[in-house]
Every structure is written in C-alpha cells, then in structure tokens.
C-alpha cells in the first residue's frame, strides 16, 4: 500500500515538475478525444434531431417536385417551395381513408427574415407535435382566429425580434427579407408559442387565408396552398405513394419523412467517413502524444529512477510511477475530452438551433462517452508500457556508472 502511495507521489511530482509539457499533453489528448467523440456522436445526434423535429408529421403533400425539397420546405422551413397546389388537393387527401390529420399550409411572406406560415388554427389544438405533446400558447395569449389578421409567434422568433402580445407588424413579401417589399396589411400578435425545440419555433404562424389574400398577392392564387401536412393511420402510406408519386403527375407525396431525411444525410456519407477517419487519426495522435510526453519526461527521470532503485524502490514502485503518470495525464485528458466534446456539441447544437430551430439532445454521459473515456485511459496505459520497460532496463546502467 505504501508502494502505491509512493508511486502516486512520484507520478504527481513528475507531472508538476513538467507542468507545461503535462498541460500540453492533457490539452492535446482532450482535443483529440473531444473531436473523436464529436465526430462520432454529433453526426448521430444531428440525424436524430432532424428525425425528431418533423413536428409529428408522417408525410407532406406538395407540388410536383423533389420530396426532399418538400420536407425541408414544409417541416424545416428551409429551401423554396416547389410550387403551389390547388385547394381541391387538400380536400381530396383530407378525406382519404388512410389520412388521420391534414393541415394545409401556405408560404410566401416573411417578417424581418422569419417566415410567415399560413395554416388552420385547428393544428395548434388537435395536432401533437411530439407524442403526447400539443402546442401550448403562453398565457394570456391565444391562437389566431381563422378570419382575422392575427399572428401566433414561434418562441425563437419572439425572443429574437422581441415580439410580444399586442404588437403589430407589416409582413414583407417573399421568403427573404427585403425592405422595399413591405405589405400594407398589419398583423396583431395574439399569442406566443411555448418553445418546442423544433422548427415551429422559427416561424410566425398566421391564418391560411392571411397568406392567400395578402395585399399584393395574385388573386388567382387565393385558393392555392403550398402543401398539406399529413399524419397517416399506422404506416399506410403505400396507397398514397402509388396514387401521387407513381400514377399521378400533379402532386408529390413526401413519405415517409424519416426515410427522406435519411437519404438526405446519406448524400454526405463520404463526409461522415472522412470525419470518422480523421477522428481515428486524432485518437492515434492522442496516444502518440502521451507516448512522446512520457518518453520526454522519462529521459529526464532516468537518473531519478536509478537513484530510487538504490534507495530500495522496487520495480513495481518505479513502473507504477510511470503508469500513474500516464493514467493521471490520460484521466485529465479524458475528462478534458468530455468537456471539449460538450463545448463542441453545444456550439454545433446552438448553431443548428439558431439557423433551423432543430433542438439537439446531446447526452454527455452515454456509452459513446464512456467508451471514449475508457479508450483514452487504455491508450495512456499502452503508451506508458513501452517506456516503462525500456527505462527499467537501462536506467541503472546509465546512472550507476562505475566511478571507482
């Protein structure tokens, strides 16, 4: 037990004596581990976050075009609308036996760069954006009325623009903000949505007719919509898929949403593989850094170890001190890598949330973090083993040179 304490004391003292080298080692290992974990986890988290941010919809019906564009436009409020649909499409799909929920939506305007999405007030009453979760309006606000120029503001928009109940604003034409495209209509903020961590937070919701009949819009388009958000009964989208995508030529059904998102991410699989390779390389660098650091301090400590041996230190005390040194550096490096990963994740998630409204869950203490943590410790131990053996064999000869 005393030997263990001596080993630990020697290791800690060696770290303190080589403080700068130790810090650089810990920082580099933390950086390598953090990037490794980040590359491993962030990709998964982004995929998961996007899959969970589909606001509880199974499918989107829109104008003929790309399914991905439809999903990104309707659910994530990205990209332009592929076109418009006639109101009759909504009525037809609403009454289809496999459809459980159908909410038409219309796009075309913004307020200071945040999209205005026209839809039916029922969506905020009946629809569950997440299992068991309905939209909530912060009191004392309420949902807009179908025929009024009223707005329900997403939590993020309210926060960014400082919009509050009773505020009035002029919408701007188009999905991008342009000061010279202001509409004459004035909208009254009647409610602020409670944050959901989904893209719903990033838009201003108004009545469907508001977008359809906005001053300056083409009267001929007054009966058109951008698409329909759908929930299906069970997983029965095949019939609709055949009807709209295989046989029809007027509309596109984006279904199932997770598969479409997955195909989107698969486009970047080469990037994921590159990042994974880079991450592995970083892990290797981390191990080599510990090895280099130990070998560097080992060179300085050879004399110390030989003296210790003369003082009666056993092989286990000497090797133990090197292993402890490596374990301590690895431990701090592993802890640092979790901190670095957390910072990286927070940065990535805040950027994604800021830009798209998708909230990411990044559990720090999951299996991946545990494996990375243990992996760094193992790398540290392996890195220590070689110098340990080498040192033990050479230290006495080098130091106890015959002087007489």
């Amino acid at each position: 037990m005393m030997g263990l304490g001596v080993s630990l004391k020697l290791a800690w003292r060696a770290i303190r004596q080589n403080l700068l080298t130790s810090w650089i080692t810990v920082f580099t290992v933390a950086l390598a581990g953090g990037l490794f974990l980040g590359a491993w986890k962030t990709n998964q988290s982004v995929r998961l976050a996007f899959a969970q941010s589909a606001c509880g919809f199974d499918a989107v019906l829109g104008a003929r075009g790309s399914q991905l564009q439809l999903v990104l436009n309707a659910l994530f409020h990205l990209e332009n609308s592929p076109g418009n649909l006639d109101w009759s499409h909504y009525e037809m799909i609403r009454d289809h036996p496999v459809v459980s929920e159908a909410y038409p939506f219309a796009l075309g305007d913004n307020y200071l760069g945040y999209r205005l999405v026209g839809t039916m007030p029922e969506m905020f009453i009946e629809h569950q954006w997440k299992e068991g979760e309905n939209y909530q309006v912060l009191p004392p606000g309420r949902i807009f009325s179908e025929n009024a120029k009223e707005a329900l503001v997403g939590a993020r928009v309210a926060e960014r623009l400082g919009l509050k109940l009773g505020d009035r604003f002029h919408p701007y034409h188009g999905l991008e903000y342009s000061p010279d495209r202001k509409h004459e209509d004035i909208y009254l903020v009647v409610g602020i949505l409670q944050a959901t961590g989904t893209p719903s937070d990033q838009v201003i919701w108004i009545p469907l007719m508001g977008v359809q009949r906005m001053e300056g819009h083409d009267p001929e388009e007054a009966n058109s919509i951008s698409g329909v958000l759908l929930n299906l009964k069970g997983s029965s989208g095949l019939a609709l898929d055949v009807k709209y995508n295989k046989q029809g030529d007027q509309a596109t059904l984006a279904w199932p949403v997770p598969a479409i998102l997955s195909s989107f991410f698969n486009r970047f699989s080469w990037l994921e593989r590159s990042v994974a390779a880079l991450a592995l390389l970083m892990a290797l660098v981390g191990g080599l850094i510990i090895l280099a650091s130990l070998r560097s301090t080992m060179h300085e400590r050879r004399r110390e170890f030989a003296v210790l041996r003369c003082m009666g230190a056993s092989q286990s005390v000497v090797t133990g001190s090197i292993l402890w040194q490596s374990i301590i550096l690895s431990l701090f490096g592993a802890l640092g890598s979790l901190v670095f990963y957390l910072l990286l994740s927070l940065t990535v998630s805040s950027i994604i949330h800021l830009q798209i409204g998708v909230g990411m869950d990044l559990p720090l203490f999951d299996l991946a973090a545990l494996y990375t943590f243990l992996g760094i410790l193992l790398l540290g131990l392996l890195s220590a083993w070689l110098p340990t053996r080498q040192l033990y064999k050479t230290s006495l000869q080098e130091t106890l040179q015959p002087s007489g």
Partner: protein
Amino acid sequence: MGLLEVKDLKKSFLSPAGKMEMILHVPKFSLEGRAQVALEGASGSGKTTFLTFLAGVLPADSGKITMDGHSLHLLREAARDQLRAQEIGYVFQSFNLLSGFSCLENLTLSMNLAGQSDLEHAHALLHAVGLQDRRNHRPHQLSIGQQQRVAIARALVNKPKLVLADEPTGNLDPANTDRSLSLLRSLCEEWESSLILVSHDARVIRQFEQNIRWEELNQIKRDEEFSQIQEDLA
C-alpha cells in the same frame, strides 16, 4: 559472523571485442557491525560496481554475499529491494537528491520506500545535519555542501545497518569535505551503522583507521581494456 560477508564474488562483462572479460573477483571481504572502512582505489577500477553488488542493486555472476544474516545472492529481486530500503543507506558522489522534492520530502520518501513514516525523526535528522531551516528547500536551492548533507541524512534516515558511500566528497571543497565526512562518520556511529566509504582521495582515506586498497581486494588487475569496458558501461 560479521554484518557483511563476501565470498568469491565474480563479475564479467562483454568487452567491445566481443569477449567476456572478468572485471571483478573478490575472494573474501567481511565487515563487522559498526565498523567504518575506507576503500581506496583509482577511478574506473570497479569499486562502484562492487558497492552495487553489496547493495543488491545488481547481481554478481557468482559468489556469496551475506548481509545481516540474509544471503543476498539467494534473494529474489523484490526481497533485495526491501532489504536495501530498510537496511542499507546509499550516498552518491553527485548526491542525487530528487530534484522535484524538498529536503524533508527526500527523507520521508526514503522512509516510505522502507515502509516507514516518522516525520518527527526526519525533522530531527535534518536538524542534526544543520538544515532544519532549509527543510522545504528544493535541492537546487541549496549549496553543494548542503546538498551532500541532505544526501547523508537521507542515507541514514531509516537507521540502516550499512551505509555505502561512493566518493561522497568527490565534488566538495576541502572545508565541505571535512564537514561532510565528519557528519557522516558521527551519524553512523550514533545510529550504530557500519560504513564502507569508497574514495581515491588520500586525504579522506587517511582519516579512517581501517582502510583497504581496492587493488588488494580485487584480484583482477586493472589495464587499459578493463578501463574501456568500464567506460562503455557508463
């Protein structure tokens, strides 16, 4: 039987020419408890190697070393380490204090290696060598003479039965030589430790009543090739 008995100790090393060359052969050596002996010999003649055998740090090729009833040549390495930590003190020419540790810590670490922990004793010993006020100083903050005094205190902190001093005054000026030597000898006497001091300095050797010429102890005669082997080992 004395404290230390050596019989027919031999050691060979591989020479640069690729042949095994015997560099050390000590047929017989013994040391009584509390004895103080000076071992005199030229540099590079194998005295330090002899000390490392006595300390059990390096094993000889053959021969017997009995230390306080323990047959060093029969003990496993771990047991030799333990014996060395508890019963042997080592003083080096270049002091070899652990630079990352204070004076006091150098002593307590030595105690820890022997499985002991007596802070009061460590303080008392530092006081005895006149460095109590420097107990928290690191070696580089001490003068050469002070460093050697700490090294002497460290060698004696476990009240060893045998102290091996390898050219302990080799780096000291005459004043510090006298002071360190006097301190070492008086502390050994006080703790009832035997002392083997290796030196090539006649001035040091003269202060010992009992001194042995290394050339008489070691049956291998020193020559140029032998010196070369020693240098290669270094």
